[in-house]
């Protein structure tokens, strides 16, 4: 039997060669989930398991291999999926009471592509309700916990997926990104998290939060795990008109770690005076390593960075207030009993949405309402363009990749961020990539007080390949996944 944490490439190879039965690996993943108590009595990382379906799929896959079908790049690899991505055999609750027990009648394209590549989806994972949060404490099903220290959050909103990978249940997982919801939990859990370019991966079947920002993201125990999964799910999808018809590169480990010829930018706004000096030191050590690998490092400026959080927390709630209008008790999920239509809507929504979702719907409705639209929403869109221009200018000046901290802190203890805006500041270094639509990746670059620190790489649109090249080299030079 091979551990599910062996790595995507190793597992797929062994399953494809017939050395290991996919069902044995899937069983080992379930056993590991039980061992680390991934359910509600422990890490609370998993909302639904599909034991029978996963084992059946694994046996079926082995049979197809025996019949001569060529194994896919994810052959028999167990994977978990965030609960806002539509699956047919498990509910899609989005971490919300309003969708409790809801089973989608169609499947997300990313799930279809995982299956076609041979992956076995074994579970749906806990998340902040409708992906609104940075700690997975906003789930209607209780907070998820960080496997490295269960008194701390795993980050969010894709905290359940990150926890499953960090706990060694699966080598890779799907999450979703709107403002950092894959990269920040990856940083908090000491694993790799990727937000592809907006349009690189289909959003069909990803329950919409903020449609101009949302993107399916990938977690991996290593850069290679994440790279293989991104390669499997990327590409144009006829069911998502915002998915781009752009060539998908093969993301694989380069033969050499040599980064000669690459220019790495160190944006000063991501290293403010207020940044924890220990996080700054870990990131600067990683930058020094990049220099040793042959890269040229250049100080650069992205002057509108500090405006990203105000912009993000206007645009995202505005889009959310519109997207979540569909949850009204008529078409999906639960329904509140009431004597009139308006009261039915109001009871359903007030009873179904938690406090943070309610707050953001109100905020979004307010900034879109007459009299405030220009001052807030229009202005935020204009400043968003300035933020995107900052990146265009820096990448146009010859910088290939930017390196920054992923988050301003390490994983914080549960229940310690009660002020909403304090929580929003967790996204301060990640929301910019979503606003600009560019790809970004977080990987572990060291530890502070035993907790992982994430370093972030960003590049121009559709240039995931250069990010992976740098990430592979840095990961190897730093000596493995947790540095």
């Amino acid at each position, binding site marked *: 039997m091979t551990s599910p944490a062996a790595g995507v490439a190793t597992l797929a190879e062994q399953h494809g060669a017939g050395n290991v039965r996919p069902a044995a690996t899937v069983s080992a993943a379930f056993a590991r989930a039980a061992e680390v108590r991934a359910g509600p009595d422990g890490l609370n990382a998993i909302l639904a398991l599909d034991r029978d379906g996963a084992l059946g799929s694994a046996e079926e896959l082995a049979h197809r291999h025996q019949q001569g079908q060529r194994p896919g790049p994810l052959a028999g690899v167990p994977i978990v999926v965030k609960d806002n991505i539509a699956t047919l055999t498990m509910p899609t609750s989005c971490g919300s009471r309003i969708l409790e027990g809801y089973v989608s009648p169609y499947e997300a394209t990313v799930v279809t592509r995982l299956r076609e590549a041979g992956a076995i989806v074994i579970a749906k994972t806990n998340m902040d309700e409708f992906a609104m949060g940075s700690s997975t404490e906003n789930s209607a099903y209780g907070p998820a916990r960080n496997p490295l220290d269960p008194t701390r959050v795993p980050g969010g909103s894709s905290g359940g997926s990150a926890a499953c990978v960090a706990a060694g249940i699966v080598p890779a997982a799907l999450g979703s990104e709107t403002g950092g919801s894959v990269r920040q939990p990856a940083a908090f859990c000491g694993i790799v998290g990727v937000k592809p370019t907006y349009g690189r991966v289909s959003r069909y079947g990803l329950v919409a939060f903020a449609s101009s920002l949302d993107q399916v993201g990938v977690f991996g125990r290593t850069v290679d795990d994440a790279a293989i999964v991104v390669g499997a799910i990327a590409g144009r999808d006829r069911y998502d008109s915002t998915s781009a018809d752009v060539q998908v590169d093969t993301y694989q480990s380069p033969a050499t770690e040599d980064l000669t010829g690459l220019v790495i930018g160190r944006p000063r706004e991501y290293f403010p005076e207020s940044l924890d000096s220990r996080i700054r030191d870990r990131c600067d050590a990683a930058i020094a390593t990049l220099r040793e690998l042959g890269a040229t490092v250049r100080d650069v400026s992205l002057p509108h960075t500090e405006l990203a959080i105000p912009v993000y927390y206007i645009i995202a709630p505005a889009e959310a207030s519109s997207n979540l209008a569909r949850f009204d008790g008529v078409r999906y999920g639960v329904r509140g009993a009431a004597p*009139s239509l308006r009261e039915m809507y109001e009871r359903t*929504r*007030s009873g179904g949405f938690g406090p943070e979702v309610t707050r953001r719907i109100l905020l979004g409705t307010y900034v879109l309402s007459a009299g405030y639209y220009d*001052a807030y929403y229009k202005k935020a869109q204009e400043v968003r363009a*300035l933020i995107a221009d900052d990146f265009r200018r820096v990448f146009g000046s010859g910088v290939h990749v930017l390196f920054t901290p992923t988050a301003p802190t390490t994983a914080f203890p549960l229940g310690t961020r009660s002020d909403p805006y304090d929580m929003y500041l967790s996204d301060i270094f990640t929301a910019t990539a979503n606003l600009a639509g560019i790809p970004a990746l977080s990987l572990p670059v060291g530890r502070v007080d035993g907790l992982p620190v994430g370093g972030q790489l960003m590049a121009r*649109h559709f240039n995931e390949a250069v990010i992976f090249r740098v990430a592979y080299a840095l990961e190897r030079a730093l000596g493995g996944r947790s540095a």
Partner: protein
Amino acid sequence: MSVSEDDVRHVALLARLGLDENRIPTIAAELNGILAHMDVLSRVNTAVAGAVTGVGAAGTPLRVDGGNQIPLARPREAFAPAARDGFFLVPRLATHEDAAAESS
């Protein structure tokens, strides 16, 4: 700009959210706390800002205006408690019963 309790009631009405009256002062305070951080945007000169772009130079691809047949795992009729003549049947609301009674 500050959000009054009446603003909260108005926005809740627009958003079809039934808020407990006791929570409204807290929500108004929270929204004001958040929006205070947004005021920094009003001081930014955006006269030079270009159009907001999402996917970059590749633009958004278009498809034939014919619609895609979405493959469904279950028949459409399975989504509702009951269906008739291709329409979903949903539980009647009391107001509809009243209207029906009045019109008969």
